């Protein structure tokens, strides 16, 4: 669980290109303007690079990456 959290934070930090994502895990990243649809693709690239797991954009809902906590839940289902 702790590993997944770190993984989620690392990926989001890389996709949003800011460590500010660590400050509030319930922050709506779309609303905060930290992520957009192009960055969403980067999430998948980062995930593949770090875990070897290749997911498709259609495997992921916008909701799944809207907050770091949602993304942790998503990873639990897909990776954990």
């Amino acid at each position, binding site marked *: 669980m702790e590993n997944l959290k770190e993984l989620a934070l690392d990926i989001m930090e890389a996709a949003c*290109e800011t460590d500010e994502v660590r400050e509030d895990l319930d922050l709506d990243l779309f609303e905060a*303007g930290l992520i*957009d*649809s*192009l960055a969403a693709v980067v999430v998948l690239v980062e995930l593949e690079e770090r875990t070897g797991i290749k997911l*498709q*954009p*259609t495997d*992921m809902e*916008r909701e799944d990456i809207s907050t770091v906590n949602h993304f942790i839940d998503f990873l639990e289902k897909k990776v954990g």
Partner: protein
Amino acid sequence: MWILDELKKRSDSDVTALIHRERDISFQELWKQSEIMAEYFKQHCQTKAPIVIYGNKDIEITVLMLAALKSGRAYVPLDITFPANRVETIMQDVENELLFNFSGETVNLPEECREIGKRELLSLLQGNPEGTIIPEQDYVQGEDNCYILFTSGSTGKPKGVQISKKNIVNFTSWFAKACELSADKQVVLNQVSYSFDVSVIPLYIYLAMGKTLFSIDKEMLDNTRLLFRYLKESHIAAWVSTPAFLEICSFDDSFDEKMLPELENIILAGEVLTKKLVSVLHKKFSGAKVINGYGPTEGTVLLSACEITEEMLANEKSLPIGMILDDGYYEIQDDKNHPVAVGESGELVVVSDSISKGYFKNPEQTAKAFFKAEDGRMGYRTGDLVFEENGLLYYITRKDTQIKLNGFRIELNDISSNLNLLDIVNNSVVLPVYKEGRVAYLTAFVVLNYKSELSDLKTGIAIKKELKEKIPSYMIPRKIVILEKFPMNINGKIDRKKLAEDYL
């Protein structure tokens, strides 16, 4: 090729003209409904001021565009990415009598302006069963404006690019050849926002050819699963978009010729096209040709284009943007407006019937970028640095601080000017962050007027939220860096280079 002439030939046709989700409209209905609305404009408007349309991809928007043209008026399409505040600023310039609002946003109307929502519009379209016939002499003619597109301006106020019938006819007559589809192919992607002129290609070329436009709205763009569900059923034969949108789609393995078996033409414009994307496309869609187009809004959609060949991909240079359109002549000029030596780089200056008459009610900005050539035609200094080799033009970069982000044209000073209007902001600088040779996102550096109690993250978010009320959402910087003061260079100006070195 002129859209109203072509649509008139199809005014009895039952063929589908547009599809949006579960709704569609035939050429016959499109013709009839636009007659009804043109008649409405004639009866209810005192002036020939343009009609403003604030919306996304509703079928009725096309009805209104055609109705405006038939009644001798221009239309101003404003996408839902525009905040109400910016719409209000634009309406002050346009002095429109009618605002068609599909956005759901509340817009403060000037005194002489009436707002019509979608429901009221639908009931207006029900009326007049006899059918009116708008005489052709009422239609927009040669130099009359057809549309005015408001694009980012460096002062923080958008500039309206006026495009006439003459401009459009010149563009479509040239580019229609590149758009040709096999006779049995029918459907064309209609994804590009109407406030961005690449959307003119589906509308003024493919619809005029009698093809069916398949509309993709903003919600579908935000939801890949939903988007693909529609695309799978679409039978699209021609794809028109920015490279950025196609790249997002291409990231999915299932997006290939099995999903779009009829795809023949891929037309990309609005930003730099990379070899990487074209290679992927050639693999995914082996039977489709990829066309790279280049052109500022001021030159009516595209001033040059070419098909990208395997040979160009193998070449060590970047991809070419093609040759200047048939009627145009051009020069590549140095800083003193003298032509550069063959093969040297410089600013692209073009004279053509595609060049706009200038910015709407803005003689100052018009004089800066436009000129009248010796033959009486309009010329435009593009601000784009290019070079030429073997008869093809290659784009290098901008001369100024205008950038393209995901195909959207943005003046960086437009953002900082609007940031500086916020109470908390003392001064700001916005810089692009490049990844793999193109702008990935924007970072704003701000110095505050007073210290915020919030963390820098929360302050940044609050600033973005306020900024969103002033400028389109695609212009909002992803990162806000709060500084105590700006680094200065020896001339006493903000040292942008140092900012980039230290933070980007």
